[in-house]
């Protein structure tokens, strides 16, 4: 079953992933000198640190994460934003790019609006605060938002953003990838559809090798298909 070409071996919770001398990283735990997997995922080892990259799971906010959120509620001086995590995330008016009068939050963001923002802080009981003070933070208008598993986000972004850049370049779409698994795409309908397909491909094939090439091929083929018999 395992060890198919192009497939990284999967570890299952409770499986030993390293002996003594190795440090347990995210997705693992240690017990009596041994390191075990805590999550279903792919084992990686670097500099004596064993980690398990989960295949599935919820998004847990961390300080500095860029996320795409949907405004779900407003108070007199803050907005409550759904960032696809188990914790409610308020965005305080002082953290927004506007000068908001007390009680006037609805003028700037309404329930249902989608924003690109950052996680300002997460404390030990996981109280989250958001900020829009970064330059790229803004209200997103137009385009579409798709959701993928948050564990697949690093693959969609790629090394130093190589994968998103590739998709952006080949499809001429504007793309924001939130760490919370929400992705905002904007471009022509056809381009957006192709980009969305490419992202789904990455999500499904996240554990495979040679992903970049597969994505490039998919996009190029899709673009040719739609262009060939078209009117232009």
């Amino acid at each position: 079953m395992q060890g198919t070409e192009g497939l990284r071996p999967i570890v299952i919770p409770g499986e030993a992933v390293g002996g003594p001398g190795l440090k347990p990283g995210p997705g693992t735990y240690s017990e009596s000198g041994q390191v075990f997997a805590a999550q279903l995922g792919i084992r990686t080892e670097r500099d004596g640190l064993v980690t398990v990259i989960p295949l599935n799971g919820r998004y847990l906010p961390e300080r500095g994460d860029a996320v795409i959120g949907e405004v779900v509620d407003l108070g007199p001086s803050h907005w409550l934003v759904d960032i696809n995590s188990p914790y409610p995330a308020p965005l305080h008016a002082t953290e927004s790019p506007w000068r908001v009068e007390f009680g006037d939050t609805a003028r700037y963001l309404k329930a249902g609006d989608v924003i690109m923002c950052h996680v300002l802080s997460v404390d030990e009981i996981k109280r989250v605060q958001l900020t829009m003070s970064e330059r790229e933070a803004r209200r997103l208008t137009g385009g579409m938002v798709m959701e993928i598993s948050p564990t697949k986000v690093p693959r969609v972004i790629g090394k130093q953003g190589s994968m998103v850049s590739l998709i952006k370049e080949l499809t001429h779409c504007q793309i924001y990838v939130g760490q919370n698994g929400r992705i905002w795409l904007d471009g022509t309908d056809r381009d957006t559809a192709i980009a969305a397909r490419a992202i789904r491909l990455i999500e499904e094939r996240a554990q495979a090798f040679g992903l970049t090439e597969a994505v490039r091929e998919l996009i190029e083929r899709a673009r040719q298909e739609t262009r060939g018999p078209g009117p232009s």
Partner: protein
Amino acid sequence: MEDIEHIQKEMKLIDGKGRRLDGRKPDELRPVRIEAGVLRRADGSAYMEWGGNKVLAAVYGPREAHPRHLQDPARALVQCRYNMAPFSVTDRKRPGPDRRSVEISKVISEAFSSVVFKEQFPRTSVDIFIEVLQADAGTRCAGLTAASVALADAGVPMRDLVASCASGKIDGVVCLDLNKDEDNFGDADCPMAVIPRTGEIVLLQMDGHLTYDEFQKAMSLSLGAAQRLYELQRDALRRRYAVTLQDILKESPPAPMVAGPAESEPELPAEDDFGSEGI
């Protein structure tokens, strides 16, 4: 209705050759099949067939715990709902929670509480739903075993999977994994759930009486079975993630595919999934 007193005297649960009603040996499991990731909307899910039992498990979370006053600022809640479908038994079961299912929900959620890393998700809850579609004794063990696959499928951090199997006493013989008739007409039933890696016991109940020696025997049978179930659980999870690679270019596959049963059947040659008793 038949006269149950009368049947009990007639019923030979173990024949002269030491075989049980469905032809099993005392230490033999019923055929088990586990499938992971069968539901689209849940974060994690599993389906299990265990002899005549058919059980579906779904896991959500960690997610915001509701109602708010239940939230624990230090750790996650592990909540479980065990429910039997009205059509899961011969006489229609009245829908809704009853004394029995509330108890089972409680013991199962406590069993999982001890393996999930709750401290990583303060103020949240991990919700486990176990639906028994068809019951044939041992549903709490089947539910627990399936739910543990569903938890792993949902990516919830945990120390290990939990495997569970009952043992009991029928006609004075300690046997593994009782079926409906053996449970009804036997002398004792003792469900048990363990963390297979360490052998820790996370659920232990007993209905009926066993002597100390019989209990020791039952326990060793259940522990052995748990190891076998553990392998099936792990296999189900591996298969689940092997599938995603084979149908790569499909955009969004339609309704859950019926993945071929493959070699998911365990070591037992089963003449019929429902056993000889027929539901």
